[in-house]
């Protein structure tokens, strides 16, 4: 019943002198890209360069929520594709990614929030993504522990309910993709740091790493919070990305209490009960850019205050662990997926902010197409870096964002 086949490949064979493509960053987006490169694009001479170990960054620090109820015409199909891919990937990778289709309840705390949600719901529905607006009473039916009192800081007016969403076991995705990629010939070099990207006449020629230099015509940088810094330091290209710390925590495991992912923009809280029974909950990002993954005293306290107002029974539950990761925020909360511009052979897939987990499968698949064929798939075209230069933001968020001191 249980083979003793290795799940993690361990260290790859020694670095080859050259690869068809080198992917910097051993996170989910690159693992997915590598897997699709090998499986769908027949590009097997691929190396992943990871400074730490695979899944060290955002892949292992997110709260594993998946959904497709985005706001804009450009984003919705991408996230829908990603959502639809979980069961497919589970089958293809023969690894249980544990997609738990519990649906998402996004709480709305004002008339304005209901209005903003209606744009999402209506757009999503027209694009074939199931989404509903609930009033307060309907919301409480979905979330019995919810506090409907008007005496709280942000009384609940209703919710955006998105049945197709849910949670996925994030570690399983890392391991499943890594195993799948390695089986298909991808070399995963852990504990190997990318030091530089070499170019000649505006074309990528290789990557310098702590384990030696690799010749390659294609480099894909997708290193989560570190992408913008890497691209700037290696090639001098400035990306409009601010990196902010985002914190999360879990309670002790409980018998089933929350049946859906519950989130609230006004309270800066999202919470879901994992299959293990813990309530995993996250806050908003720290209000200033930095690169640390340290937690702060204020946030866990804030989180407790907010959760108790929304779900008062949680007053009797304990937090047992908190951690932090990095969110690479663009000014319009949509990622940058681009390639061959301004450097030929340089591809980037970054700026996902806190949407990197839910999108990784679809983004990886399209980036694989892009890298293998040099043709930007239509679905990725709106995510070009040049949109910032042209001041054409994507509008993934309705409200003004405040990630950088100059915004």
């Amino acid at each position, binding site marked *: 019943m249980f083979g003793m086949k290795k*799940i993690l490949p361990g260290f790859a064979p020694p670095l080859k002198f050259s690869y068809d493509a080198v992917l910097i960053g051993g996170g989910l987006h690159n693992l997915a890209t590598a897997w699709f490169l090998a499986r769908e694009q027949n590009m097997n001479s691929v190396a992943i360069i990871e400074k730490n170990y695979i899944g060290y960054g955002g892949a292992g620090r997110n709260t594993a929520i998946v959904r497709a109820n985005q706001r804009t015409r450009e984003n919705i199909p991408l996230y829908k594709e990603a959502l639809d891919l979980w069961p497919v990937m589970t089958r293809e990778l023969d690894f*249980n990614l544990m997609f738990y289709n519990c649906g998402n309840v996004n709480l709305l705390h004002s008339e304005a929030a*209901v209005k903003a949600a209606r744009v999402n719901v209506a757009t999503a529905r027209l694009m074939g993504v199931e989404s509903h607006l609930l009033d307060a009473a309907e919301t409480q039916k979905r979330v*019995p522990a919810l506090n409907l009192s008007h005496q709280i800081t942000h009384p609940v007016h209703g919710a955006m309910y998105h049945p197709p969403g849910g949670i996925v076991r994030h570690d399983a995705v890392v391991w499943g993709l890594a195993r799948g990629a390695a089986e298909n010939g991808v070399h995963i070099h852990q504990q190997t740091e990318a030091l530089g990207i070499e170019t000649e006449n505006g074309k990528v020629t290789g990557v310098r790493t702590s384990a030696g230099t690799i010749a390659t015509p294609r480099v894909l940088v997708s290193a989560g919070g570190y992408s913008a810094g890497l691209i700037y330091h290696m090639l001098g290209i400035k990306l409009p990305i601010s990196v902010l710390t985002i914190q999360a925590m879990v309670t*002790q495991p409980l018998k089933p209490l929350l049946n859906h992912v519950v989130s609230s923009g006004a309270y800066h809280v999202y919470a879901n009960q994992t299959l293990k029974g813990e309530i995993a909950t996250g806050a908003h990002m720290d209000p200033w850019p930095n690169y640390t993954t340290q*937690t702060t005293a204020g946030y866990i306290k804030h989180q407790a205050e907010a959760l108790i107002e929304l779900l008062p029974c949680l007053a009797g*539950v304990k*937090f047992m662990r908190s951690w932090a990761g990095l969110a690479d925020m663009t000014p319009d909360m949509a990622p940058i997926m681009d390639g061959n511009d301004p450097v030929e052979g340089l591809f980037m897939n970054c700026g996902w902010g806190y949407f990197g987990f839910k999108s990784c499968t679809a983004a990886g698949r399209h980036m694989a197409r892009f890298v293998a064929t040099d043709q930007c798939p239509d679905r990725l075209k709106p995510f070009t870096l040049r949109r910032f230069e042209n001041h054409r933001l994507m509008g993934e968020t309705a409200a003004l964002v405040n990630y950088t001191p*100059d915004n």
Partner: protein
Amino acid sequence: MKRRLSLPTRRVDLQRRIPFFYKKRTCYGVKGDTIATALYASGVRIFGRSLKYHRPRGLYSMDGECSNTMMTVDGVPNVRTETTLLREDMVIEEQNVLFSARNDLLGFMDRLDRFMPAGFYYESLHKPAILWPMAAKMVRKAAGLGHIDPGFRFSGICDEIYPAADVCVIGGGPAGMSAALAAAASGMRVILLEARPWLGGSFDYRLYAAGETMPLYEQAGELSSRVASNGGIRVFTRTAMVGGYNDNLVTAVTEGTPEDPFDYRYVEIRTKSVIVATGARERPLLFENNERPGVMQPDCALRLARTYGILPGRDAVFSVGHDFGLEAALDLSDLGVSVRAVADVRKDGHDPALLEEIHRRNIAFFPGWAAALAEGNKKVNSVRLSQIGTGRSRAFSCDLLAAAAGHTPACEPLALFCGRLAYNETTGYFLPGKYPPGVFAAGRVLGLEAPTSIRASGEWAGHEAAAFCGADCHAAAKDARKALDGLPGPHAGSNWIAHPGPGRKRFVCFDEDVTEKNVRQALARGFDVPELIKRFTAAGTGPGQGGISGHNLPLLVSALTKKNAAVPTTVRPPLRPVLLSAYAGNGREMTKKTPVHEAQAKQGAVFRRVGSWHRARYFSADLDVTEEVANVRSNVGILDASTLGCFRIFGPDALSALQRVYAGDMSAIRDGRIKYAAMCNHDGCVIDDGVVIRTGTNDYRFTTSTGRAGETGEWIRYHTRFEKWDFHLVNLTDGTGVINLAGPRARDVLEKITDADISNEAFSFGSWRAFRLAGGIPVTCMRLGFVGELSFELNIPASFMQAAWDMLLEAGRDMALRPFGVEAQNVLRLEKGHVILGQESEQRTNLLDLNLGFLWSRNKDIKPVGADALGQAESDPNRLTLTGIRMADTHAVPPDGSVIVNNAADRRVIGYIGTIRKSAAVGAVVGMALVEGPYTREGTRLAIYDGHSNMNVFQHATVVRMPFYDPEGERMRI
């Protein structure tokens, strides 16, 4: 069970019985008992069942490191009964059992371990695909310890305090107390945190003195009375450190007693330096059934007897690896426990004095032996000891097995401050490689065992910390170091935690039922470092976090991989589980109220939160606010607009600063006139709008929207940061109230309460005047037209707001003046086509998109923020643009946020409605929407979908010109 009465170390008051309910039965403990000791004294041995295998679990340690003894108390799940003080009438229930902990109907799970290797769910349960959704539901039901009722309400009192200190000492044992006394001697403000209810640490319950005259518990008593009488030391007992953050911020939680005015208190300490003196725990010993009830750590057994007067068992076997284990065996033997055998993993290196005592008492002693198997169905009834290396073994019947591999440091606080830990070859401990400035460690956490060394290390750390804080005590620190160096150093320890060998139920992590075998399985699957093995097996991720497995997992990985490099997984706060209510503290509503909040509440206002404020949104149950709107259109109303941002900017370069942030030309402001202005960001997107007036030479006032008031100061400073401009910016928002008196009869009302000439000739639309109301109330009055009627916007010092409000209401009484809310204003301004940022604009909406291009001045000396982007956007015809729409149907009002599609067949989303209302004044349903450029031509027919109804049914609207009402603006100019 009868308790020992005459122990000098006893901490419970046997005369004070405390009743509680356990399994619906009344039981009794005594004052000072924890829940666990009370239950143990009542004969309870099986406290609960384990997560996965439903194995019986009992008392193992005494500091609540694992879920073995977690129970549901008064509806709160996962209460650590080992550390929670027993209170009267507590209702205590078992967790994770079907029927009872003794007879758990799910106990058969224990035999299914072969089917549940490490991480089995990753590689099963997904084939066929249809299996998983069902399996997931079952997994969810099976997982989780403890249940919380959705209707549960916490009734306790939570407090919070934020003390500051020079030196914060974590741990009130002999080292911590010595450190606190030494630091206080240099005049430092010292805070001493102790998780247990009393100071004393490991000395508190021990008689042994290693050649000294005074028993350890007396030494502890002597130290704690010196601490108590020292005014420089603030002692927090029952207060466990839970977090350590940047710049030595320490958080802790106090568990109150019935005598305290709180149940939990969150303590956040800003301290200059930290001394970690948290001592050591016992390192769990791995053997078959190492968590069977009846197996406990020697320290736990000794404390049961010495502190609580409870004999832990009748016949005991000890399997230890440290002198303390021998000491505990001897002491328990003296207290009446029959010690059948003592095995010690060490072949030599024992304290000779202890060995001599063991021989003197004829206790069978087995050096180089350790426990290999605990037998007994639900409780231990015999133990098999075996010799390391040879496999020779002997069985002993017993009801208590006191087992530990040795000591391991309680180094988690150090890990929070110092980062990575490393394995120390001498002590076998995990300790930081280096300490950041201001962080010190003392006592047993460093591996010191000799009582004199423990105290001396505390004194040294106390002096060092004081010196770090600037005290002149370097000589004292030097002397203390010298004294410490003359005393016995850290003991020799090892990484030994188990006989090598097979075994199915050698538990590394009790919470998650992770066995040594599971760790081997993880290694075989390629997970080669503790961090990954933890994730794959879940070891150390349960309710007790790494309390049991934290050090044993890396030690085991080292042993299995024959590498000595494994270090513990990252230590993350909170160091022990903390109730959300304890973190939340006393709770507070931070929303601001305007000066006339209460007055409006009395008039029936329904409030909504806007930014950081409460604002009156409706003044009637009619959420369509028909009456409120009509009254402003035909008569007169007042609106409290105090939440608007209000600023004064003055100084020689005030104008330059305004020119930088506002798109328009602020040098063109004429005396007495009002300038409508907007701020953009670098993308040209509108972030704020308001009005600017010039009140004197280089002196301006401006308003912002409610939401932006907080950020505006920051915004202006940021965008002028490279300039050497001289200006001052004052945020007057909270000190300024605003009343908008609006409607055709507004002048009639205002005239009654001011002598100023407010005729249209003297005070025309678009201008402002400063004058006084009756009673001398100073106002800055602006004639604006946001709602489209004659209107006077009165800016009034907040302290006069109530008086002015009352005066206006009185003056307007015979004209039926009434207040109107934000929703009425919303309809009124919609009819005028005036935007509210965030309502008709979104993040990517620029000035041109809102048809406000006239607010942008291209020829200023100082280029405003966003000018480049605006220049680029001018040539883009496809942007989402503010568009007036009129519904074909005069009655049906689609909700705000309904989307607009190009046509019913194609259904491509081309925009959405910002605000739409039925307008009595216009006689139609009109709204403002953001629509893609090509669809904004007047007369274009648009299809609208509300996100709710059938997706094939669309309502229709036509693009019309704005404003909808009084297009020439005559009504506001009267």
